[in-house]
């Protein structure tokens, strides 16, 4: 995947921002985490849809993380997130937020406490208590030995 195209300066470096209409998310907002799981909802796509949206929906016939969608399509997560958020809003993609709260980094000093928020920053699911989640991961890894 990394061998595709040049990392900077080539058409690929410009084009993604054209795809999203110049949007790349709000710099200080919490983006769709890379491990968020996404899957096509099965809702029929409108005929005139941009090909980039269509490619995401076609790829997401099974469940994948945001990171995997970006990697398979050769698009940076900043772009894929914007497109996915649009598709979530239009009902074509369903998502599962990451489980557990995990680590929360301290806010950078320059960030205003209430900055603008990107569309659909999924809050973590509280499916698991932190300890339960860790034990589940532990047992799952032990099963792999």
């Amino acid at each position, binding site marked *: 995947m990394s061998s595709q195209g040049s990392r900077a300066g080539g058409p690929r470096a410009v084009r993604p921002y054209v795809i999203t209409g110049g949007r790349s998310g709000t710099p200080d907002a919490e983006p769709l985490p890379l*491990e968020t799981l996404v899957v096509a909802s099965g809702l029929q796509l409108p005929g005139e849809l941009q090909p980039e949206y269509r490619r995401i929906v076609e790829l997401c016939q099974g*469940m994948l993380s945001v*990171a995997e969608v970006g990697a*398979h399509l050769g698009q940076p997560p900043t772009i894929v997130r914007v497109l996915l958020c649009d598709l979530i809003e239009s009902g074509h993609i369903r998502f599962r937020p990451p489980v557990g709260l*995990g*680590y929360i980094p301290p806010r950078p000093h320059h960030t205003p406490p209430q900055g603008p928020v990107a569309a659909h920053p999924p809050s*973590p699911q509280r499916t698991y208590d932190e300890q339960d989640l860790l034990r589940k991961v532990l047992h799952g*890894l*032990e099963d792999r030995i």
Partner: protein
Amino acid sequence: MASKTASDGVYVSSGVTGAAKILVVGPMGVGKTTLIGTVSEIKPLSTEAVMTRAGALADTPVSPGKTTTTVALDFGRITLDGDLVLYLFGTPGQQRFLPAWRELARGSLGALALVDTRDLEASFDSIGHLEDLDMPFTVAVNSFPDSPDHGEAELREALDLLPRTPLVHCDAREHRSSVKALISLITHLIDTASERTR
């Protein structure tokens, strides 16, 4: 690409209800991608994290008007217990990549810091970042054939590790050894979490 099917193992199993992640951090060449590839059920993939210009060092070539630059991240996936998927993100440790850590660190369970004893200093930045971010981690010494044989006390002192930070040895090329390093991390995270709630 459009021909991917569930049977290729590309997709996360439909029984999975959510994902968690851990970071595998360390300098270039320390074995992050090797370890991820060893334990991952998919061939490691590559994505990018964005750094703002403010985070880039003066020597980083940044064209005028360009406010962000990217760093490549390799990652892999392990399905656990059928309904939980764990992602491992390889995160470069150098000082100039620190801004990319903030987003990646958010929501992570913890980090495995890989160390190459042939160049301990190269790991100082990663370990320092983890301590600065107050993120729980375990140090895993990736053993190379020509790695010098340091005692644990000597390594701890050289890396200036806190007594509570576990230090384990692993061979990133070996599945069992790499999984055991992850188990050591998760065990440490459980201990850390139970101390916090006590």
